[in-house]
């Protein structure tokens, strides 16, 4: 005999539960944490390098780098002054809460003020997997085009801060900032946004000031 069993459960719940544990663990250790998500080439690693360059003398910073293969990004983060852990996702297109959980086990969390997680470069999959970081930061970049919020609506939802990188290229590229920001506003109302250039360092002050404030607020 067939019987119907009502469930009504969010399918991401098992990941979300581990994310919650990560969050508790990080908060208990007094670590402020960010999850950087972006398409490949938007400037995740460059922003991390710039951030490390300015903040490494005042704060202890750990970086967890998620990539399908290689340790190129973790090597760059280590060279820039962070304690870096590389996650190789082995083909998976995103970092999930469990992968971060394993990476956290390699760090003495109490030693750090700030954790930066660099997700796999991808505008689709990482959006579905919470990690348990304090904030989700999306990095967009001017050469990607102004239509990205409209084409990847899931990624532009539920983020806490938006960095718009490579603004030094604005004069050379047809990027309609108003059109881009309207799309962002629909998907994430009142989103904090930081237009920057990792190359010229324009706008970096505002980004670093915000980050510093958040870290102090935590500790």
């Amino acid at each position, binding site marked *: *005999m*067939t*019987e*119907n*069993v*009502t*469930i*009504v*459960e*969010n*399918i*991401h*719940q*098992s*990941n979300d539960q581990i994310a919650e544990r990560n969050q508790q663990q990080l908060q208990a250790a007094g670590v402020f944490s960010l999850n950087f998500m972006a398409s490949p080439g938007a400037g995740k690693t460059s922003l991390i390098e710039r951030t490390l360059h300015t903040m490494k003398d005042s704060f202890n910073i750990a970086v967890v780098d998620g990539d399908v293969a290689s340790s190129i990004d973790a090597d760059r983060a280590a060279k820039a002054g962070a304690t870096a852990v590389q996650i190789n996702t082995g083909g*998976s*297109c*995103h970092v*999930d809460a469990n992968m971060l959980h394993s990476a956290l086990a390699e760090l003495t969390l109490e030693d750090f003020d700030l954790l930066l997680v660099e997700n796999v470069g991808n505008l*689709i*999959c990482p*959006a*579905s*997997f919470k990690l348990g970081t304090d904030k989700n930061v999306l990095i967009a970049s001017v050469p990607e085009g102004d239509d990205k*919020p*409209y084409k990847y*609506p*899931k990624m532009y*939802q539920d983020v806490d801060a938006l960095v718009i990188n490579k603004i030094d290229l604005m004069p050379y590229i047809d990027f309609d900032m108003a059109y881009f920001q*309207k*799309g962002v*506003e*629909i*998907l994430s*109302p009142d989103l904090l946004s930081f237009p920057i250039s990792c190359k010229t360092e324009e706008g970096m002050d505002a980004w670093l000031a915000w980050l510093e404030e958040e870290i102090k607020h935590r500790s």
Partner: protein
Amino acid sequence: MHELAITKQITEIAIRYGEQNDASKITDLYLTIGDLSSVIDDSVQFYWDIIAEDTICEGANLHFERIPAKLQCQKCGHEYTLKENEITYCPQCQSSDVRIIQGKEFQLQSINIEK
């Protein structure tokens, strides 16, 4: 691509509820998927056949209910459904001050089991 991880999660939830209810077999799963949730039915189905093998879910049918994306205008209150998930401003008053009110869902609603 993330559908592989998602399909594993679906299987885990179904098996957990199946075992709690002494099921010898799960025959059907009813899923609701919002159009803005970035989940593709065909990909889930593809992985399902592989992942469900040798579990009490083997051979179970997946039923997908798609939930269209709906927005509400914060200016005039008009509610509208998106065509092909293209984010558009309010068709009534052209305001860009609109909010998503439906379409993010992704849930396992129920399963049919045999004891």
